[in-house]
């Protein structure tokens, strides 16, 4: 599937699974701060993508806001990320209400994959 967050354990630890790793699935824990937005050629972060790196083998999955391989987990990751860090586009600050961040992520999802893609309750 990819390198994805399988358990949002706490604000400081996330459990990550790399389920189609060479030789079989593996996983571990990461600091959520290591999940970063994809950087453009000029270094500008792109709020449409987040990169999760496998703590075991260094493989890196670039997930779209829409969810890509696993929409529910990935969309939740975007919501948690924007809630903790704000959005690099400047529309959402880390201090904003959680609902505002979630609505921003939902907007990104709708733009990317269409309105039927949102899978969070």
């Amino acid at each position, binding site marked *: *599937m*990819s*390198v*994805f967050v*399988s358990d949002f354990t706490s604000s400081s630890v996330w459990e990550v*699974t790399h*389920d*189609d*790793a*060479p*030789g*079989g*699935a593996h996983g571990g824990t990461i600091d959520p701060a290591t999940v970063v937005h*994809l*950087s*453009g*050629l000029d270094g500008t972060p792109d709020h449409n*993508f987040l*990169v999760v790196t496998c703590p075991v*083998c*260094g*493989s*890196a*999955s*670039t*997930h*779209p806001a*829409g*969810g*890509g*391989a*696993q*929409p529910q987990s*990935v969309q939740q990751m975007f919501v948690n990320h924007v809630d903790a860090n704000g959005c690099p586009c400047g529309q959402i600050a880390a201090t904003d209400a959680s609902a505002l961040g979630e609505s921003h992520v939902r907007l990104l999802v709708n733009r*990317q*994959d*269409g309105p*039927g*893609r949102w899978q969070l309750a």
Partner: protein
Amino acid sequence: MQAHQVQQIIDALSGTPGLGVPLSPTQVSDSVNYALSVENIDPTNSRALNVTKADGTTLIRADVNGVNLGNTTFNGTVAMPGGSISSGMLGPDVARQNLLVNGGFETWRRGNGPFTTSYSADRWVIGTAGTDTLSVAADTTHQDAGSNRCAACTFGLGSGAGGTSFYQYLSSAEWNLATTLSVSFRVRTSTANAVRIGGYNGSAYVWGAYHPGDGAYHTLTQTWTVTTGTASYVAVNFVASCTAYIDNVCLVYGSGPANFYAAPPADELARAQRYYQTLGGGGTADLYFTGYASAGGQNNGGTLFYLSQKPVVPTVTKVGTWNVANCGQPVVYGIGQQSASMYATSTAVGNVAFYSAGSAAGYVTIEANP
């Protein structure tokens, strides 16, 4: 034919009141004669039998042109009124297009497992409930006749209370399935009343009968109508601890289930690659990007064109550590439904290259699950 039977026919044809009785059943045990034979030796038309309805139209006619039943003629080929055969009248051995991806469980491009969560054999998903456990792996020993592989499912019942399934999801993002569907599974297990199959009608699963648990493959079928929404699931449901082998699943439109027939391998692979594919990994440098940097800190890269367009923007994974020359590890950039790009940043002036490192690592996976 005996005289009193001939008299019955005469009475019937002439409409004699009270004597329109049927012919008595007759046992004819020799290898030549029939209970009723009518022969017209006219060599041209051989008009042997003509039975009409009250309005004079044909009910049954038998002559040199074959047997005519009014609207259906049998004369070596069958000519029936257009639209008179519904899908429910088709036999299961009439091959029809399978709506599923990898219904034969021949493709395991994420590996052979065992898988205990989420996706396993391409589009097939493990969905456990409560403390239930379900392990799914490719199996080349217990597959159905004519198959090369099946899915071996080892289920442990916990607190799931029958909520664990092994399923394939047909998303409303791609399908409009507000219609009647039929599915057939080949299932083998030695545990009675542990495994059943079914489909989702938009609000609930419609389950079929359980496998009898005799250790043999059985064809389990179910038909349902999607009445809410436009998406559906087909699933194997586990309600008691067991080991079950699942193979050759076929989902078709209509009320008549169809047996599984393998699609051409090229077609099957192309359908699977719409959702999950790898690029590279076949050998060292089967993905190769090169350029020139006039200084450190410059980006060089190229485009990865997918083998099949993805249904939504996919997740792209750079797997493992790539071989690099005069640059850092490459990163993925610019993901779309048809392509993505990768680049690496130079460390100094000179040629820059990054390339895949072979089968164990150094390739790309692209996955989109609508």
